[in-house]
């Protein structure tokens, strides 16, 4: 393990019931980098993401084998509390999913759950900080009491990012965060990922290869539950080692 590694994945396999979803995957998530997971639908990239914060625990019949560590600690050790783990590993979902509450309450949710705010003023300050980091503060500062669902799709997704940032996670998992957004909303999120890099270790699943090339430093290509190729993004996109990778990134797949 290098000094810059935040999470490691070693020989991880996942099954849903009897169906294997991921086989013998090993990779590292670096502290100050964005890693992109790409591959065709059903290749296991979202499964890997949900394995990292143990969200698969709540899926009936899901089974995980292998080692996942966060700062060297085994994420699946019996002593690890998944609730505490998820406070350190935040997640942004495919479609914006703000709670049907006000904008302020969405961001304050995690703070309240974890008792991170001391008093009203502190809560407001932390809400403002999270919204600022998510690049949404200027747009919503005058309407924090409005329902979150009154925001546009792109704003909702940035609100979901702010909600995840508010609890000060160390890792942020993003599951195709732009798939429900228009090009402008997508550009804002990509810009935001660039701003957040360095402060958080970021792992993003995407279907969009240009996006992977733009935002990530490392890319992992999956196919049929296996990690086919894993390396520096610039390398993987210009000079892939595997034929399957080349076929996929040049659009000759399938």
């Amino acid at each position, binding site marked *: 393990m290098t000094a810059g590694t935040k999470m490691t994945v070693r020989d991880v396999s996942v099954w849903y019931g009897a169906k294997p979803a991921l086989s013998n995957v090993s990779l590292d998530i670096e502290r100050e980098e964005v890693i992109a997971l790409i591959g065709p639908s059903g290749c296991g990239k979202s499964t890997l993401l949900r394995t990292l914060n143990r969200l698969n625990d709540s899926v009936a019949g899901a089974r995980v084998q292998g080692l996942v560590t966060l700062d060297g600690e085994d994420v699946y050790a019996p002593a690890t509390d998944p609730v505490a783990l*998820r406070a350190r590993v*935040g997640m942004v979902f495919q479609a914006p999913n703000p709670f049907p509450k006000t904008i302020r309450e969405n961001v304050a949710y995690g703070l309240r759950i974890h008792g991170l705010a001391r008093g009203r003023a502190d809560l407001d300050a932390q809400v403002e900080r999270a919204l600022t980091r998510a690049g949404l503060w200027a747009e919503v500062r005058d309407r924090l009491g409005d329902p979150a669902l009154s925001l546009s799709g792109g704003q909702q997704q940035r609100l979901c990012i702010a909600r995840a940032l508010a609890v000060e996670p160390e890792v942020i998992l993003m599951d195709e965060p732009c798939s429900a957004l228009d090009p402008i909303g997508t550009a804002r999120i990509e810009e935001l990922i660039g701003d957040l890099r360095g402060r958080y270790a970021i792992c993003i699943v995407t279907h969009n290869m240009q996006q992977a090339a733009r935002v990530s430093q490392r890319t992992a290509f999956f196919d049929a539950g296996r990690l086919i190729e894993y390396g520096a993004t610039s390398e993987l996109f210009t000079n892939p080692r595997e034929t399957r990778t080349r076929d996929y990134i040049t659009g000759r797949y399938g």
Partner: protein
Amino acid sequence: MTALLLAVFGLALIGWLAGHARALAFTASRGVLPRQQGWYVAVWTGLPALALLLCWAMMRPADEITLPAMLALLLALVGGGLAFARLRPGFAAGKRVERIVVAALFAASMVAIVTTAGILLSLLWEGGRFFAIVPAGEFLFGTHWSPQTIEGGDPTAGMGALPLFWGSFFIGAVIAMGVAVPLGLLSAIYLSHYAAPRTRRWAKPALEVLAGIPTVVYGYLAAVTVAPAIRDLGVALGIGAASSESALAAGLVMGVMIIPFVSSTADDALSAVPRTLAEASLALGATPSETVRHVLLPTALPGIAGGVLLAVSRAVGETMIVVMAASSVATISANPFAPATTVTRQIVDLLTGEATFDSAKTLAAFALGLVLFLLTLFLNFVALAAMRRRGAARA
């Protein structure tokens, strides 16, 4: 009459066979199905005749039978004959039969609606006659109820129905809901978000079987088992008013009966909350119970509230349990151990005695029914509006 109906159906059958046979003769042409030509003739033979008989039966009792019989048979022959005469190659009988089928389906769906309207009209009519004798204010807000003793005297005395409405509210909306809402809601939370699929598979139907038990069974459970136990408990606690016809006994049993209504609507509302909302909460490090409390319940609240209102409306209209376990004496008391009566119980008492049909006493039953009907109609209306708002919020 039976013979007449058989004759009409017989003619229709002959019409079918005749149409079918005739169509077979030119079946070579495209777009003609002999079966449909047969149905076309059969429908025109049977329907007008049956309609005529139905009208006749409704207009006057079956004292005169020869004239309508002749008319009906004639109509069957004429209708069938005309239809038969129209058959020719390329005649789109199928389309016409289809139109009649649609009309029949529409008529079937109208039956329930027309019946509801009819019930409302008759309640309004009889209720209006009652309110011509007893002022509405006297009836709705009077506190003295003893309609059985008014013969001869002042008809407005003893017609204060407030104790009845209080009893219905206290038993149905307070005590029964006090049982059904917490238990129904908790079981819905368990079933929708905690239970393993295997547990859910048997527990959910088992719970819903509760709704299929005849209410009379609940009634004797209340009267024979629960009511004496409640009275003994009341006596042991030193409550003077403790009665074996207590509000508590009827309300508790009614509450158990209502559990499946609450749990099933709450389960639907909770299951309709998008899975990603629950996952968003879990991914923020919330525990499952925090997720239920702060995300699932608030999101599902309109649907749950609608379900509870529907349950209240059912509880207030419930009759059998209160006939068997509640009191017939009308008093206003907030003591759950004291006897209590309900609107439905009193309607049964008023109509099962021997009385002329238009005495104030019988009319009072219609007035009670009218108010109860309007009340539950209003509750159902609000409930459905609440549930629809949930649907709109999700879209």
